[in-house]
């Protein structure tokens, strides 16, 4: 959605001094520089690998899953009706309904990622527009939009989600909307600050005094400078969004019941933690690994795309 074209970074520090003319060599070396910096950063590399695996799992889940995640298997329970431990036909064990935990985990990845990406996509877009318009136009528009942002920010997230879903009923779409509604504020704040400083740059003033329209200045001159920050916030946002989805599903107002979601699996598993610890351990590991991986990649992207970031490790 958001352009992540060759203009990821224009900083002279990153752009090589290529002797050849034309764009292609410059673009190629930008990407290869990105890749090289990734290879020199083991935590980020690990994160990137996990994210990649996760994406593959989410996309090809139906091919990878050994069983149907919704089917309760008769032989999926022990003689006394308890869930089966990992091993054998069910590599990660079964749940109290005799369903395969691994298959549910794989299908859950798709749910979590879909929600993470969709909710964040919407949030980033709204945040970008609000921050951009408020920052660039200024005056009362700025005041109104940013106070609105503050108001939304002040909502307690879970309380708000409970209230909204109590009215609209739990569904994947509602989870996405709730998360997007709460998360855009953070993007808007950051973008707002960046726009305030960008619009004082001389090239913006110069373009304005040329007689170029405000809309063109915003989208042609300012937005490209925001793209690196947007990519970083998007990545970090996916991590926290997956956590929020898990919390919502955990308390039962997230993804509706038969659909597998990691948070919901953990919630179910906790009732059986003494006899079937695998029920919460595996989704827990998946959740922690995913969030960690997205955070690592986001941190790395921030360092690479913005050399002025003070949080250097």
């Amino acid at each position, binding site marked *: 959605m958001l352009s992540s074209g060759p203009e990821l970074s*224009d900083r*002279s520090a990153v*752009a090589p001094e290529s002797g050849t003319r034309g764009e292609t060599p410059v673009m190629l070396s930008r990407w290869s520089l990105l890749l090289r910096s990734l290879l020199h950063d083991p935590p980020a590399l690990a994160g990137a690998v996990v994210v990649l695996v996760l994406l593959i799992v989410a996309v090809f889940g139906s091919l990878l899953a050994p069983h149907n995640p919704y089917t309760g298997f008769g032989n999926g329970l022990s003689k006394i009706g308890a869930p089966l431990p990992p091993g054998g036909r069910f590599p990660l064990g079964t749940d109290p309904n005799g369903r395969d935990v691994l298959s549910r985990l794989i299908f859950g990845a798709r749910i979590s990622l879909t929600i993470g990406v969709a909710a964040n996509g919407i949030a980033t877009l709204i945040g970008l527009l609000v921050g951009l318009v408020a920052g660039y136009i200024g005056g009362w528009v700025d005041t109104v939009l940013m106070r609105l942002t503050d108001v939304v920010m002040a909502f307690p997230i879970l309380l708000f989600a409970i209230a909204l879903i109590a009215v609209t009923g739990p569904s994947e779409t509602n989870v996405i909307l709730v998360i997007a509604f709460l998360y855009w504020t953070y993007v808007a704040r950051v973008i707002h600050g960046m726009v305030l400083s960008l619009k004082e740059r*001389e090239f913006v003033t110069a373009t304005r005094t*040329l*007689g170029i329209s405000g809309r063109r200045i915003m989208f042609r*001159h300012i937005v490209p400078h925001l793209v690196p920050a947007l990519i970083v916030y998007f990545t970090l946002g996916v991590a926290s969004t997956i956590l929020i989805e898990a919390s919502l599903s955990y308390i039962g107002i997230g993804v509706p019941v038969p659909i597998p979601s990691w948070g919901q699996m953990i919630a179910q598993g906790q009732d059986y933690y003494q006899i079937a610890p695998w029920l919460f351990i595996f989704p827990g590991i998946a959740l922690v690994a995913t969030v960690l991986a997205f955070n690592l990649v986001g941190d790395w992207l921030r360092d690479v795309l913005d050399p002025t970031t003070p949080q250097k490790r």
Partner: protein
Amino acid sequence: MRTVERGAPSPTLVRVEDLEVHFPVRRSAFGPKSGVVRAVDGVSFQLRAGDVLGLAGESGSGKTTVARAMLRITDPTGGRVVMDSLDISKLGRAELKRFRRRMQMVYQDPYDSLNPRLKIGTTLEEALMVRGVRPSERTNGVRHLLERVGLSGAYALRYPHELSGGQRQRVSIARALGVEPSVIVCDEAVSSLDVSVRAQILNLLRDLQETERLSLLFISHDLSTLRFIADRVAIMYLGQVVEIGGREDLFDRPLHPYTLALLAAVPEPVPRSQRRPVARLTGEVPSALQPPGGCRFHPRCPIAEDICREVVPELRRKAAGHLAACHLVPDAPPIGVP
């Protein structure tokens, strides 16, 4: 055409009258106004067609603010800027957009005045777009613009970081020329360039000014630059013009004690013995938050008298085409009285 004794002066193109730019100072965002910075406080001058007017002064004297107010980057709080019998300071949004083509600016920092993410060609195309040049003709237009400022058309494909400071400043000039303005304001346009490049850019500006009949307002803290390029020079101190006159008049027969002190501070390769010695300026420029009463220069003036502390001096005609704001310099006899 650059002679001292010109015939009838060319018609006035831009008239700046009592321009004021005051910035309110607040301790907090919603707090009461705790003061006013009088960055520009009653500046008047005229820019004639085809003329180069130099504007000089120390840092903080309000030179740049004058320029920004003329182009409505900053809104003036008082006074008028008249061009084409329009008061620019009161134009609405749509009118202002139409006016923008008439007056352009070349900015101080060549490293910040071009968008680092756009190719030079794209930046220049925007200027042509404003003028309504059809998309099919813009590539040619861009090449023509680049050639006018002494760059080859191939630069259209480059990004700003691939250019040197002098080349970027040429691109800035090309962008300004792209909308075919009558006035270009150069705000310290050569200050950040090294000396040899500076000379090239100054020559380019002077050539363009002569061939295209442009009027330039050339802002610089560097008097030798102004001596090279300006036809007339105005000296600013603390938000006010203290002296304005023809280049020769001002440099060879300065009237205001501040101008004298400024000129004395210019390093000369060969000392001029005929210049009368002047006390060097001491002290700092007072705050524009609380400018001194009377003549604003009096606390630092070597020849200040009682009247200077109490009465604000007006900018008055002291010789033909030469105005100064000083009580102690005698006025010229009124025009028409021999």
